[in-house]
């Protein structure tokens, strides 16, 4: 299968102090194939969010090559093939849920009855039907993050980049969101890169888990998750899941010493 996202020896240095440089990412190489769900897991400061921003073309790497849909990432972004979901839902408090969700259409001068319909349909799909005209402060954290996912999806991107989107959400809601997210990714047929620091989250969602070590951020290894799909919450308690979670934990802790 072709690589939708391909990173080859991606290196990132930030300027630190007066003339110091800090190596944040050291020759990171991995790829994601069409329709694949790939998680990136690692300790804080391992550069996983930076890596996601490089794929999104929000940051330019110091060295190395990045191809997104076979193109430079800035082209993929300009063609709006890439959706990004942030840690914070970033729903603007002065806009209703629907107005927040159609923001990308508004920016692209594409607001029409048809695109509005698309926004409403997606909101209904994630269970936010009836909340279109509410303001974000009335929504729970989980509902806000659902709306944020819908906003990222409404332009029909081929790639979905997610930066710890469920970090601030309680566990029960998070598990429900995991199931919904897997459904959405299948229905919308997107390739997903998902940054997290939760081992169960990474294993449950992914086809592959990229484990990173820190100082400098580098790939420690990639673990294939061969659990059958569709997955339900019972998977979490079965032996294969536990084994995979243990493998991820071991790989993570190798770098912690």
């Amino acid at each position, binding site marked *: 299968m072709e690589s939708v996202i391909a990173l080859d020896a991606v290196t990132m240095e930030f300027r630190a102090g007066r003339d110091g440089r800090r190596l944040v990412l050291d020759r990171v190489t991995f790829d994601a194939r069409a329709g694949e769900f790939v998680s990136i897991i690692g300790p804080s400061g391992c550069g996983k969010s930076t890596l996601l*921003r490089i794929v*999104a073309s*929000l940051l330019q790497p110091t060295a190395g090559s990045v191809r997104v849909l076979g193109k430079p990432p800035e082209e993929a*972004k*300009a063609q*709006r093939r*890439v*959706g*990004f979901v*942030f*840690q*914070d839902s*970033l729903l*603007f*408090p*002065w806009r209703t849920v629907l107005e927040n969700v159609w*923001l*990308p259409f*508004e*920016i*692209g001068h594409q607001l029409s009855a048809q695109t509005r319909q698309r926004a409403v349909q997606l909101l209904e799909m994630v269970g936010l039907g009836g909340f279109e005209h509410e*303001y974000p*402060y*009335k929504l729970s954290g989980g509902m806000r993050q659902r709306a944020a996912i819908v906003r*990222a999806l409404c*332009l029909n991107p081929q790639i979905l980049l997610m930066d710890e989107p469920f970090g601030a959400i309680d566990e029960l809601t998070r598990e429900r969101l995991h199931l919904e997210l897997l459904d959405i990714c299948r229905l919308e047929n997107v390739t997903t890169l998902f940054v997290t620091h939760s081992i169960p989250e990474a294993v449950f969602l992914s086809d592959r888990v990229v484990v990173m070590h820190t100082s400098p951020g580098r790939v420690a290894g990639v673990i294939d998750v061969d659990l059958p799909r569709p997955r339900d919450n019972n998977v979490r308690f079965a032996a294969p899941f536990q084994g995979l979670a243990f493998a991820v934990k071991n790989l993570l802790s190798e770098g912690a010493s």
Partner: protein
Amino acid sequence: MIARDTSATARTGSRASEWTVSVAGILVLLVAWQLLESVLPIPRYILPLPTSIVQSMVRNAGLLLANTWPTVIEALGGFVVGNWVAVGLAVMIVWSKTLERTVYPIAILFRGIPIIAIAPIMVLWLGNGYSSKIAIAALISFFPTLVNVIKGLTSVDHQALELLDMFSASKSQVFRLVRWPYAMPYLFAALKIATTSSVLGAIVGEWIGSEQGLGYLVILATDQYRASLLFATLAISTVVALVLFGLVGAAEHVFVRWHEETRG
């Protein structure tokens, strides 16, 4: 919905009782003033009784009113001009790095000059009419708004800017859709400061050179030892500033409703 409605009622309810308490406090102060002064040997030409201030207000209603309008016009004119220029300049400064490095330091430099020292220059340049007072009121309301709006426009969450970047938003879209709404609470905070300071600017301008206005009346009443009229003029000036403040508060309530609700 139900939960929200009750909380809204509770809020208006407590607001109403807060008002009652505030008004009662002022009344108690006035009554205490009246009673204490009847007992203590304070000369009335230094501190008039509240009742005689009210009497003076009624007796000199025509004089007070005739001198209130010029001050209102000058304060309002200065408020509008000063804030308009400040907002425009703030947008330009945030828009362009070059302007930030050139214009902003100049603005800060001018900020250091005491407004009282600029006032005579304005009268010298623009004469005794409205324009010099409008200029002073504008200058005095200019800087807080400039600084606040710049702060508001740049206070935007970095991730919000990345979000708009992902949608390939243009610079003007970033301003219209994110920076401007983010700056609104900052703008209104500055506008509230500007209401009282623009009245201050107008009155200071009238002191320097004018034949009308509340500032002129303050000088006149002081020269003639008419303490009751002086205090009446002060009271009217306060009311003018408070009315402007209230109008800005009402506008804020309409335009930045989301901010109250998010906090509330």
